[in-house]
């Protein structure tokens, strides 16, 4: 069974209360947004973290991508707010 590692950063991590987790890979055609929908029922922290999708960004196997991107064969998905480095 294929799995997908999910990582959370910044306030996404704080709301969910964990750095990340491994889930069953929902298939290549499922989008990141689909996956997020499937995570929401896991608890109030998820619902809070994912409430405003416009403030959410994603990276798939270390490349920034839009939430509408299909997961494909990716192994690692990261969910986080817009970056604020430097």
């Amino acid at each position, binding site marked *: 069974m294929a799995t997908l590692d999910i*990582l959370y*950063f*910044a*306030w996404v*991590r704080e709301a969910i209360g964990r750095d990340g987790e491994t889930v069953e890979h929902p298939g290549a055609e499922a989008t990141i947004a689909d996956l997020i929908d499937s995570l929401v029922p896991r608890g109030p922290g998820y619902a809070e973290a994912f409430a405003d999708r416009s403030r959410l960004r994603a*990276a798939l196997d*270390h490349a*920034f991508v839009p939430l509408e991107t299909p997961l494909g064969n990716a192994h*690692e998905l*990261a969910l*986080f*707010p*817009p*970056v*604020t*480095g*430097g």
Partner: protein
Amino acid sequence: MIHIRIGEEGFDPAALLEPLERLGGGAVASFTGIVRGGGGLVSMRLDHYPAMTERRIAHIVEEARARWPLLGVTVVHRVGDLQPEDRIVFVGTASIHRAAALESCAFLIDWLKSSAPFWKKESFLDGRSQWVEARAEDDAARDRWMKS
């Protein structure tokens, strides 16, 4: 010469500039970002995405080297806990052309601000703490490099 370092340790711009000065290019530009105090800020925490950060920065550095004739590039970014007055980021570039050194330095810091996976959380005197919101002007600063 490419030198990229992400870590919790502080850094010394002088020690970072010296190798760039010795590359024989004649033109060395640098930018240093420092944690600004004020507004009751007492500390800052910098989160990052370790597996992605260095890779992403290496990619940006390659992009800079493709655009400008650079002899050396140094990028240092602190993560972890920082105080006001602490240095947080350093970009240094060396070239035989001053415009190449200066422009690539500006390009790299614009990209670091808008496109590297760092997140800042500020803590204040009154106990409040909050994640810094991304600024549209940082995206605009990055995007101006796409026109040329």
